[in-house]
């Protein structure tokens, strides 16, 4: 029974990772860049929702919508200002820029909100679910898992069955050819960032609902873990991000429970290394032939 409860809390933690990993993996799949600022977009989203609820007394749904809008605007702005001028630069230059943006957002939040951690209000107000005697699941865990699954399905449908989704696939496969076929590459990449950032806003609410402590560094560690999850599942693959995230959460929690709380992160990354040795593209990653 206790094993089950550790497993469930692991899945819930993993769902948050999965949701963040979706943002990483989409941007990587389409723009071929690692957006390390993604975790900090989550943090900004959290602060927007926090400010809306605690300072302006808005209701929870409006606050969440505000958070989503703010994150979308921020994500698109970051793409336009920081990444677009480097579209033809080396991947390393873009990577460094992304790290720069990440620090910029953290320090900006530090200046605006201060570094004292805020207690995030319980805006979802969810009841806990009693599955069996001695086995309860928090409402946040259930909602996180459900929302992550729904978003994954909607995203998959969106990419496979809409015009923009097809354009995304085209840009992902061959940017030059897509442009020649009349796909607007810049718009497509902007839309990708917009979707990724909207997911970040949702992730921020779920993250803060489960762990109600909000500081400018809130997004950093989950961001790294989610990136790991995206690589785990095969970066660029949407179901892969989901599987990677949940596996990561479960491995982390079970190794905390049965091996060592202090070694759990080392074990998580150890498993990642083994997976990458056996299957270098990750669990669901496609083998891409380099075109010469």
């Amino acid at each position, binding site marked *: 029974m206790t094993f089950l409860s550790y497993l469930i809390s692991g899945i819930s933690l993993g769902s948050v990772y999965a949701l963040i990993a979706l943002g990483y993996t989409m941007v990587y799949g389409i723009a071929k860049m690692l957006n390390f600022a993604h975790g900090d977009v989550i943090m900004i989203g959290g602060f927007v929702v926090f400010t809306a609820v605690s300072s302006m007394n808005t209701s929870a749904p409006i606050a969440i919508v505000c958070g989503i809008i703010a994150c979308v605007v921020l994500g698109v702005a970051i793409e336009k200002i920081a990444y677009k001028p480097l579209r033809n630069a080396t991947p390393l230059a873009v990577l460094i820029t992304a790290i720069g943006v990440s620090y910029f957002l953290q320090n900006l939040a530090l200046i605006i909100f201060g570094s004292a951690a805020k*207690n995030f*209000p319980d805006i979802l107000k969810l009841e806990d679910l009693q599955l069996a005697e001695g086995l309860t699941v928090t409402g946040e865990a259930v909602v996180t898992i459900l929302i992550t699954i729904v978003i994954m399905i909607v995203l998959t449908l969106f990419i496979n069955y809409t015009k923009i989704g097809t354009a995304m696939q085209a840009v992902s496969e061959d940017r030059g050819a897509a442009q020649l076929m009349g796909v607007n590459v810049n718009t497509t990449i902007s839309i990708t960032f917009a979707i990724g950032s909207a997911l970040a806003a949702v992730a921020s609410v779920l993250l803060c609902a489960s762990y109600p402590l909000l500081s400018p560094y809130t997004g950093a560690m989950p961001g790294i873990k989610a990136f790991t999850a995206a690589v785990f599942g095969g970066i660029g693959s949407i179901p892969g991000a989901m599987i990677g995230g949940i596996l990561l959460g479960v491995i982390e*929690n079970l190794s905390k429970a049965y091996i060592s709380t202090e070694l759990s992160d080392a074990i998580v990354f150890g498993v990642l290394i083994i997976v990458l040795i056996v299957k270098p593209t990750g669990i669901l990653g496609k083998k891409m032939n380099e075109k010469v």
Partner: protein
Amino acid sequence: MKKNFKRFAAVLMVVAMMFSMAACGGDGGSGDEGGAAEFIIGGIGPTTGAAATYGEAVKNGAELAVAEINAAGGINGVPVKFVWQDDEHDAEKSVNAYNALKDDGIQMLMGTVTSAPCTAVVAKTAEDNMFQLTPSGSAVDSIKGDHAFRVCFSDPNQGVGSADYMADNFAGKKVAVIYNASDVYSSGIYEKFAAQAQTRGVEVVEVQAFTKDSATDFTVQLGKVKESGAEIVFLPIYYQEAALILTQAEKAGLDVQFFGCDGLDGVIAQLGDDAALAEGVMLLTPFAADAKDEKTQTFTAAYTAAYNGLVPNQFAADAYDAMYIIKAAAEKAGITPDMSVSDICEAMKPAMTQITVDGVTGEMTWSADGEPTKSPKAMIIKNGSYAAL
């Protein structure tokens, strides 16, 4: 290319020289004019960041004491100037803050507030032979060197005190521990607690650790504690993680007696709207704002009046005492502001071991290694405030 580089190097060196000269000028200037005018005492602590509650309280407490001391004629008839620097509870920033204070010409240091930064700064003050008194840096190494003293209990002292208290008051109950393995304060208390618990026969049934990178999700640790059937959970950690643990313990349906050390001070404010979760939490600290003795009541009244109704916590009390301790030792040593930093330190060292200060955190004397002797008090959180037991 090469020529450009040379030119660049030349410019760089000129700039560096200008800075170093400016620094010299600053030092000399304040030393001279600081001469007859005033004692400059520096303070360092986190007024923003993870442990901001402590830094703010210390700053407030120290400023209150300085205002009182100055109103009563200063130290040895010389007024005191108190300058403060924020370190965000970060060792590197704390050393930078100390360097900035030296530029301000400080002659003694009242700080730093938290253990890990204090351990870094104490090495720097040792180099400069600057007298240092930390109000609340409780790690053993926070006062390394014979120039450094502290007001609060040391970590071993808190660990031993907690184990003794449990042996005396919760005999026969099962105890679990959750501590931060990546923090010197937390692991320091835990180690001494574990040793003393064994000698006193306190039954420790579960020990769970976390690290600063995994300090958000405690479901597993709390699950283990629940499995173990512990009735008391010892939390030798800071209040932010404690707030998360209390929130998650409530969700996990864990009904136990939480027991902490001075790091838990501030948990009520951190919980905000959920402050009810802290009801019944016990902590070992040297100061209770609602104690009935006259000293505490005068201090609490003055503090509340000075800071918009804010009730002082033990950090404010430690800092308030720290200033009066400096005053007592300085008067015993007969120091004057025109003495050099090192001379002041040499005079203060023996004076510290000779004085007895009856402060708001108890009656204290010091040994040459800088440790105070005083006894801890247990407190419980009741109706949203700290009450003496």
